[in-house]
């Protein structure tokens, strides 16, 4: 059974037309299922857990990066997730802006998302984890004044720019000139440090402690958290439904 989780912002009237068309399309494809609106429930974790118990195996985030991250965190944190991990799937229907995660999955718009859900191409990928948040794409922070502690050494960045700690590449970070393409299967985080004069540094690690007393870490362009924080990667943590044009193998 499919469970569609709609974000709050889709209640705005300007999305009515898209939502109507989406629901018709899903019905036409035989993909209709239960609809849950994030705004209407108090305990998303319990709701998702109850749905898993009732037999739901495919959860579809309808919204943007923020929606996906909220749902991922909730799904993988449910007490019964590990029992059903092999069978629980996450799909995305992107609506509106700020949808880099859907881009990574090769999903350009809601219409394409419906076809991708129907094709059901499944990949099991790693998740980044920082503080109490899981993330798919990346965590980023201003480089100046940031200290990264990795294994037995640490890095200080002496100039302005941005540090991207990547689990899964998205279109805005993708650069064909980069020698390393981050993989969501290798159990590693890729650190790309871009300084304003185009200088670039990179390395990879399993665990990174990030400290910056003045700037916050931004997770998937949607959540801000204060440092110091440890970022890790959880291998093979979630099954996702992806398109052919995804940014990983």
């Amino acid at each position, binding site marked *: 059974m499919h469970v569609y989780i709609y974000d709050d912002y889709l209640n705005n009237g300007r999305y009515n037309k898209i939502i109507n068309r989406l629901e018709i399309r899903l019905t036409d494809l035989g993909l209709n299922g239960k609809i849950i609106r994030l705004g209407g429930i108090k305990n998303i974790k319990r709701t998702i857990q109850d749905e898993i118990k009732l037999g739901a195996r495919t959860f579809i985030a309808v919204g943007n990066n923020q929606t996906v991250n909220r749902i991922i965190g909730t799904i993988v944190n449910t007490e019964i997730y590990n029992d059903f991990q092999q069978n629980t799937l996450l799909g995305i229907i992107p609506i509106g802006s700020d949808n880099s995660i859907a881009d990574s999955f090769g999903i350009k718009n809601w219409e394409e998302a419906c076809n991708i859900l129907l094709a059901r191409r499944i990949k099991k990928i790693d998740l980044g984890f920082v503080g109490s948040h899981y993330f798919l794409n990346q965590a980023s922070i201003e480089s100046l004044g940031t200290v990264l502690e990795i*294994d*037995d050494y*640490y890095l*200080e960045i002496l100039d302005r720019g941005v540090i991207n700690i990547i689990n899964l590449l998205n279109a805005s970070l993708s650069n064909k000139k980069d*020698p390393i393409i981050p993989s969501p299967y290798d159990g590693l985080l890729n650190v790309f*440090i871009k*300084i304003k004069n185009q200088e670039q*540094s990179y*390395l990879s690690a399993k665990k990174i402690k990030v400290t910056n007393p003045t700037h916050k870490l931004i997770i998937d362009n949607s959540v801000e958290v204060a440092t110091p924080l440890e970022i890790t990667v959880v291998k093979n943590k979630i099954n996702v439904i992806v398109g052919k044009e995804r940014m990983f193998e």
Partner: protein
Amino acid sequence: MFNKENKPDKFKNAETIIGPSIKVKGNFQGQGDIIILGLLEGSLKTNASVFIGAKAKITANISAKDIIVNGEIHGNLKIKNYLSIGNTAKISGDLQYGEISIDKGANINGQLLMLSEEHKQVEKIKDETKKEIVEK
């Protein structure tokens, strides 16, 4: 082999680059090829190759398979295969190597010691044993 004027082609796929605005402190270890263009204090160890840029400043002992040095190093180098020293290099420390080339203008203060075939064999066996242990 190495082209000393520019980074060799093999470094285009280096797994680690430490840019000029980065300072690394501690025991830095890598599996793949490493390019250092910034500052490093501590130690550097890899089973692959290292490229040290002309503006890099390193206070560390370095252990690697091959290395090209164009910058400043205060520390000892133990290079299993090929040590290439460019004309902008300044090294204060003892050098151990399998093979060496030194460009005119390079500045070296330290002892130079060529690793014997016997020593290379011992190192090779050590590496293979380590690899086996890791694989197990």
